[in-house]
């Protein structure tokens, strides 16, 4: 398997400070144990509602945040991964395991090793009006990565910037302008140019189409697809817009309250949803077709707080099919059909 990114049991907790002495009184468990892999050249979609932790997950995978627990392996040879898994099963405290982790596990990286990583992994943010420095010219925003890594100098920077801008559909007249002089769609293109100028291998797209107009969404989607083909990119596409995710992703994962509840190839998932939450989520999207008859599943209640997630399966208080076991134990993520994994007691093998 040609996995570019392998994530094992990733957790990211944010401490909640309170009380007179501002001690830690709890944790926001934004990401609470997610394991998955992303193949080279694939686009993995990640959907869920606000607060489910998908943005935190994306940022942690590329080490913008330091994981609380878990491992991230980027472009590690499969035999090394096998060895690591073997050692983990046999003896978690094995010194060889420690050594391998220090070398390959991104979660342990710091300082200049982390900086070198930035060349290979990038991110495009959701809101282009806040992700671009309002006091910097477009030329400087897009050219900054080149300067930081001292890859080219002087005039060449401008040339490279121009070439990248043209690749995303902008032109020379946009070089010496401030971000606020552009529309939302154009700003997002500037952000994309900034992300691709170093020719990375992996890009986290954090809701890149959510803050733009309907007609611009389609344009950006086309751009993402062509960039992926030309530059052989691997994407993690985070979004809450299901139809957009469907059109670009190869596989799609569904997150709820910090955990992965279902993951399957796109066509499979959109044809049949197994997990009750996924079912409800998909049924909630308004279909642009007035004649479409849809059974809408309305969930009770609200998303609980990630500081105190419910016991057992986190979805059980709102689940229309909740059973006793759902309250007590958390269901494991298991493969139920070919490539289709789900974490739900309704489908558990045992």
């Amino acid at each position, binding site marked *: 398997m040609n996995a570019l990114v392998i994530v094992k049991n990733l957790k990211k907790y944010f401490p909640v400070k309170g009380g007179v002495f501002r001690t830690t009184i709890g944790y926001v468990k934004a990401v609470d144990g997610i394991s998955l892999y992303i193949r080279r050249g694939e686009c993995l979609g990640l959907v869920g509602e606000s607060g489910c932790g998908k943005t935190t997950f994306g*940022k942690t995978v590329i080490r913008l945040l330091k994981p609380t627990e878990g491992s991230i392996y980027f472009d590690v040879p499969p035999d090394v991964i096998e060895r690591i898994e073997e050692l983990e099963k046999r003896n978690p405290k094995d010194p060889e395991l420690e050594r391998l982790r220090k070398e390959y596990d991104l979660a342990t990286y710091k300082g200049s090793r982390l*900086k070198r990583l930035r060349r290979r992994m*990038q*991110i495009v943010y959701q809101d282009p009006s806040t992700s*671009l*420095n309002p006091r*910097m010219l477009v030329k400087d925003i897009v050219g900054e*990565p080149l300067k*930081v*890594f001292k890859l080219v100098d002087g005039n060449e920077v401008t040339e490279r910037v121009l070439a990248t801008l043209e690749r995303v559909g902008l032109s020379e007249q946009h070089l010496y302008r401030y971000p606020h002089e552009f529309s939302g769609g154009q700003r997002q293109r500037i952000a994309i140019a900034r992300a691709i100028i170093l020719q990375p291998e992996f890009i986290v797209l954090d809701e890149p189409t959510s803050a733009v107009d309907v007609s611009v969404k389609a344009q950006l989607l086309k751009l993402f697809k062509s960039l992926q083909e030309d530059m052989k990119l691997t994407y993690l596409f985070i979004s809450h817009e299901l139809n957009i995710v469907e059109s670009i992703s190869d596989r799609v994962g569904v997150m709820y309250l910090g955990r992965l509840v279902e993951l399957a190839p796109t066509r499979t998932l959109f044809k049949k949803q197994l997990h009750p939450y996924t079912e409800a989520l998909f049924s909630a999207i308004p279909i642009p077709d007035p004649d479409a008859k849809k059974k809408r599943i309305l969930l009770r209640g609200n998303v609980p707080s990630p500081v105190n997630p419910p016991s057992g399966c986190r979805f059980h208080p709102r689940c229309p099919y909740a059973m006793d076991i759902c309250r007590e134990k958390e269901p494991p993520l298991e493969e139920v059909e070919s490539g289709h994994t789900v974490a739900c007691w309704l489908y558990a093998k045992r």
Partner: protein
Amino acid sequence: MLQTAKSTTLKKRLEPTLRELRFILSRLKENPLSIAGIAIISFYAVLAALAPVIAPPPPKWRDPYMIPRYGFIPEPKPPNEKLIFGTTEGQYDLFYGCIWGARTAFRIGLMVVLSVALIGLVIGSVSGYYGGLVDEVLMRLTDIILSFPGLILVMALVVALGPSLDTVMTGLILVGWPSYARLMRGEVLRVKSQDFVEAAKAVGCSDFRVIFRHIVPNAIYPLLVMASLDIGTIVLSAAALSFLGLGAPVGYADWGQLISLSRNWIIGTPGQPLKYWHTFIIPGLFIFTFVLGWNLLGDALRDVLDPMMRRR
């Protein structure tokens, strides 16, 4: 070929900045008070620049900042044809003192404010960006300084270091930076949480670059407003200290000094309370209008920079 390329890129680079400046100027033009402020300050700037022409020092005069005396009688002489503003105690030429005093005022105001702003910027940025222990230590330091009554602390410093204009400036700088640091820290905290700062880190920028290339240019506006309003305050404080005898030496061209010289003559004679009005009203007017000009400019800047921020 290369020259023209460089000059066109320079022009292109400056274009957006010029557009911004044009926008600021047009906003300023809308407010008549701001025009008044700019006019006043420009007037004083011209006055200060042309001081050697308007009030030339006597030939072979060593230090142009020392006011020439026309006699040694204590009683001030009223304005006449030769000495336009008259003289103050000890027969110092009031006109000369006021004109060269403009230079002193600019010197004190700009030097002190630039220094405090710079120190406050650096300390505030570092404190706001890193947080944690660094932040705690630096903020407690500012707390300590801010818990003293400002002018009294400056006075103590000046007395300790020996009264002179330089020690006055040093004292004002040492006492003035905490407010700027606090303000800068607040702005840095606000800007720090924005996406583009994280994006800069994602691109690989070092902490230094993130702070000074990304955060500071976006956080600096309130500091600019505070600085322009402060110039007036600093000049006033320096004048107060000079008045108390803790600043410029006697005979130095400093407005506060001039008012200090009028101390004994403010009350005037029993029948004519305002007999020596020129000794304190004229230098007082200079201080008043100078500070007013800067205050108006500071207000105008704040009004302009705010909608500009919102426009973003």
